[in-house]
């Protein structure tokens, strides 16, 4: 059965499966929105400074905020279908646009953090499993456990203290040198300088998770019969580890790794706040401070969709890795 056919099958299955979940999330989102104290009219009144009862009532009527629940739900769904997440009075623009502005920042940060976490985590985990039970494993395990126990915002702050305040090597916040007009390679390097600390702060926790995950998965695979067969054929430990163990361990690793995308999004909230990084996370913080629930719930919905999307990719990746999936 060709890999492509199996992947296509999995794609269809994943999409079908995701629909009820998406609906569920949307409905929860809607109800959370209803639960939020105050509504858009209150926010607008707040922005304006004050408002009379009549103005508030008029605003409510205009925005359909006094309609029965089901009608509001229908309006909400209708809006979603037109890719509208509402309007933020505070920022004076549609939520969708607001999110669209900030999304790339978070995505780049997460991509970098993910890359760091996977590369270092997998490498560390492989080494740990190779030396299982012996000194290198014990030391690295404690290191991993340490990374796993540190709150992301504190890492961020301490890294600033070390690299920015004390050593002065890297900037302490923002996404790029303000007012500069760098282009090409210089621009990329500049951007990278600003990204190193936040990405590392975000990644550290996940380095630990992936390292421990990789170690466990590889130890599990190592105890299986076909590894013994590989050794019996005369293969060297390195060949066995790379061609037989790692290849099979990737399957449970990708399964579990997919579950942490949502966590990383959450971590981004804190890290972006610490580093004033212009992304969704910081936007969420600002929305909380300003009691702008529309924006907040817009972010919740969109990040959930991102998670579903990421999970779908992981599913497809798994199908590609494991020839047993997607058979008929």
């Amino acid at each position, binding site marked *: 059965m060709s890999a492509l056919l199996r992947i296509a099958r999995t794609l269809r299955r994943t999409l079908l499966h995701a629909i009820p979940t998406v609906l569920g999330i949307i409905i929860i989102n809607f109800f959370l929105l209803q639960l939020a104290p105050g509504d858009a009219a209150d926010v607008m009144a707040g922005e304006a400074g004050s408002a009379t009862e009549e103005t508030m009532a008029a605003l409510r009527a205009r925005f359909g905020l006094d309609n029965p629940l089901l009608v509001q739900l229908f309006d909400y769904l209708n809006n979603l279908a037109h890719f509208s997440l509402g309007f933020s009075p505070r920022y004076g623009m549609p939520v969708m646009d607001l999110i669209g502005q900030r999304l790339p920042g978070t995505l780049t940060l997460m991509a970098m953090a993910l890359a760091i976490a996977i590369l270092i985590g997998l490498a560390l985990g492989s080494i740990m499993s190779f030396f299982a039970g012996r000194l290198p494993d014990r030391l690295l395990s404690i290191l991993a456990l340490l990374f796993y126990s540190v*709150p992301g915002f504190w890492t961020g*702050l301490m890294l600033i203290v070390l690299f920015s305040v004390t050593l002065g090597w890297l900037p302490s916040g923002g996404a790029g040198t303000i007012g500069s007009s760098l282009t090409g390679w210089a621009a990329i390097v500049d951007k990278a300088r600003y990204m190193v600390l936040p990405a590392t702060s975000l990644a550290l926790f996940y380095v630990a998770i992936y390292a421990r995950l990789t170690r466990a998965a590889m130890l599990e695979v190592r105890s299986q019969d076909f590894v013994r067969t590989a050794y019996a054929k005369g293969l060297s430990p390195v060949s066995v580890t790379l061609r037989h163990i790692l290849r099979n361990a990737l399957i449970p690793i990708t399964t579990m790794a997919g579950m942490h995308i949502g966590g990383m999004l959450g971590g981004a909230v804190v890290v972006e706040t610490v580093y004033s990084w212009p992304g969704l996370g910081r936007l969420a913080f600002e929305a909380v401070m300003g009691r702008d629930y529309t924006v907040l719930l817009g*972010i919740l919905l969109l990040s959930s969709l991102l998670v579903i999307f990421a999970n779908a990719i992981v599913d497809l990746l798994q199908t590609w890795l494991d020839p047993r999936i997607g058979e008929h």
Partner: protein
Amino acid sequence: MSTTEIGAHDTAFAGAVPAPSKPETPAKPEWHNLRAPDARTTLTAAVAVPAGRRELRVFLRNPNALFGLVFLGIMVVLAVIAPLVFPADPLGMVTKPFLWPGQDAAYPLGSDSMGRDVLAGIVHGSRISLFVGLAATLLGLSAGVLVGATAGYFGGWVDDVLMRVVEIFQTLPNFVLLVVLVAILQPSAITVTVAIAIVSWPMVARLTRAEFRAIREKDYVMAARSLGFGDARIIFKEVLPNALPPLIVTSSVMVASAILMESALSFMGLGDPNVVSWGSMIGNGRELIRTAWYLTLLPGLAIVFTVLALNLIGDGLNDALNPRFSEERA
């Protein structure tokens, strides 16, 4: 073969007296090699499941776990006696601001921008962290085990529906949902606890379901059904005791992550405003990071060590309860 042979090599039952045999039943069996496994396939010669005390011994022999246990114990004691040792309100201004650690013997960890005692803050901060950690974990465990056990044992459409709900909650990014919930419900110790519980229960449900599904297929559960045991008896006496080990390990990790979440929320200003918390201390010290970075360091260390202690305990529990991986350490 005489019965004396039984006593001669039967060290396992040294001192025990065999029951007298009745006249009509055949001769007593000779008992040899009591601990020798004689099952044919390696699959069935699975690792022996311990009966409680062995697990405890393995756990206590693990130096990391022991350190974690001791440290956590100290933390708990501190949290309990905090009002006795530091009776004054930790949010009260008691001295000059910006005292560095070691500058003044009365305030060994210094003071913050408002002249508040850092040491008092840290000791009192442990109360909210441990309270939220334990309470949220208990809530999350209860909900998760209930849902997971039901889904895993009964299967069918019950399983489908419950798992769909679990999946929805797992898809909502944890921390974002947490922020949303606390923001909407207005921050307080209770809302933070409930919100963290809402965010952590899905994982427990998944785990419990997996365990129940696996154990339900075991022969001894089938034997119980064939003997006419009711569902309740099977769930509580046959399945649950065997599903506990991974749950025990998970609970330790859950407390750790609950503390991390609570501190992140307080850092962002979404914690209980009436209580001093490690996270809020760090949040307050954030602006002064260039000059008074000890205000960030010290509460952070408190978080790190407490969470580390819990994770060490969790790892120790895993090694003790899951013999397979501990073999690698032999």
